[in-house]
């Protein structure tokens, strides 16, 4: 349980950072003198401050760091095979295919493409007759599935090749 108020803690931190003016400092110093809880908390915060100051050292990389960077300048950053342009072209193609398929669907082109595939028994003998397997095929459902997959592919492409690189570039290099 904290012994000093949040407001007092904020004041103590500002006091340690040297952000208080002379009058404010005098007031806080009086409070520190009068309350053991406040002075204990000040010591704790001072301890943290000194630890952090000691840890805050600037590290040096290896001696050939600059040389390595200069050598790597010619190596272009690895690019994914799905470049922005290629991705955009596939995306447009994918949307176009979906639109054409949807137009054809709404025109009823695939309405009469219902059939059944019959798979006969693989074994033929005189004693036992295996029932043949019948798989119904609905052309309309099939095209619907293709349209769905195409749209899913379009969304993935939009994310990977257009949106992601765009936002990454903005996060990395622009304010």
């Amino acid at each position, binding site marked *: 349980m904290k012994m000093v108020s949040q407001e007092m803690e904020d004041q103590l931190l500002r006091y340690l950072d040297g952000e208080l003016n002379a009058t404010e400092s005098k007031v806080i110093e009086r409070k520190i003198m009068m309350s053991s809880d406040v002075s204990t908390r000040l010591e704790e915060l001072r301890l943290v401050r000194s630890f952090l100051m000691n840890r805050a050292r*600037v590290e040096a990389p290896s001696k050939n760091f600059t040389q390595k*960077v200069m050598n790597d300048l010619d190596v272009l950053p690895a690019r994914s095979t799905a470049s922005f342009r290629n991705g955009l072209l596939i995306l447009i193609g994918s949307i176009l295919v979906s639109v054409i398929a949807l137009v054809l669907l709404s025109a009823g082109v695939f309405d009469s493409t219902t059939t059944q595939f019959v798979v006969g028994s693989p074994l033929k003998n005189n004693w036992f007759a295996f029932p043949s397997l019948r798989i119904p095929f609905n052309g309309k459902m099939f095209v619907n599935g293709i349209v769905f997959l195409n749209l899913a592919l379009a969304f993935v492409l939009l994310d990977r090749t257009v949106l992601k690189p765009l936002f990454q570039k903005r996060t990395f290099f622009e*304010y």
Partner: protein
Amino acid sequence: MITTEDEYALIDKILAGDRQAYAVLVDKYKNYAFTIALKILERRPEAEEAAQDAFVKAFHHMRSFNRQAKFSTWLYRIVFNTAISYKRKKRPVFQSIENSIVEYSEHADQKMERDDKQLFVAKAMNCLNEADRLSIQLFYLQEFSLDEVAEILGQNLNTIKVRVHRARQRLADELTKILKQEALTL
């Protein structure tokens, strides 16, 4: 000492095709860039790789630097983002105890006491979330103002102020807790 004007002149040279001019900027900022990467990745080889990668990225995107902020802040933001993406890709590294080097030192006691204190701080630091930890570390590097810390981390100034403030309080609480526990076990 390179002034901002000198820096802009160097950047103009680089943009005009003088690649060697970039070495001056790399030399100037490599220590802080490496330190930021090290604070995030905590391993020197990876930090060095990330810092180098960030310098290469900055070179290839030099035209994106709009000169509204300091070049260093722009660069350190690239270092920060690169190190963060390295951290996301990083897998925990197993180090065999057989390959560890054990050193003997005459000042082992003093070193142990110093290491103990560092260990307590490190323990307390682990209780902070990553954004708070990094904010506080950058703030205490002295090189960066709160404005710059906010720009490097891509956050609002007030958010960073609160983060630094609260992180120190939390650290004090955790440190006190740890030290009390240690005192009880003695």
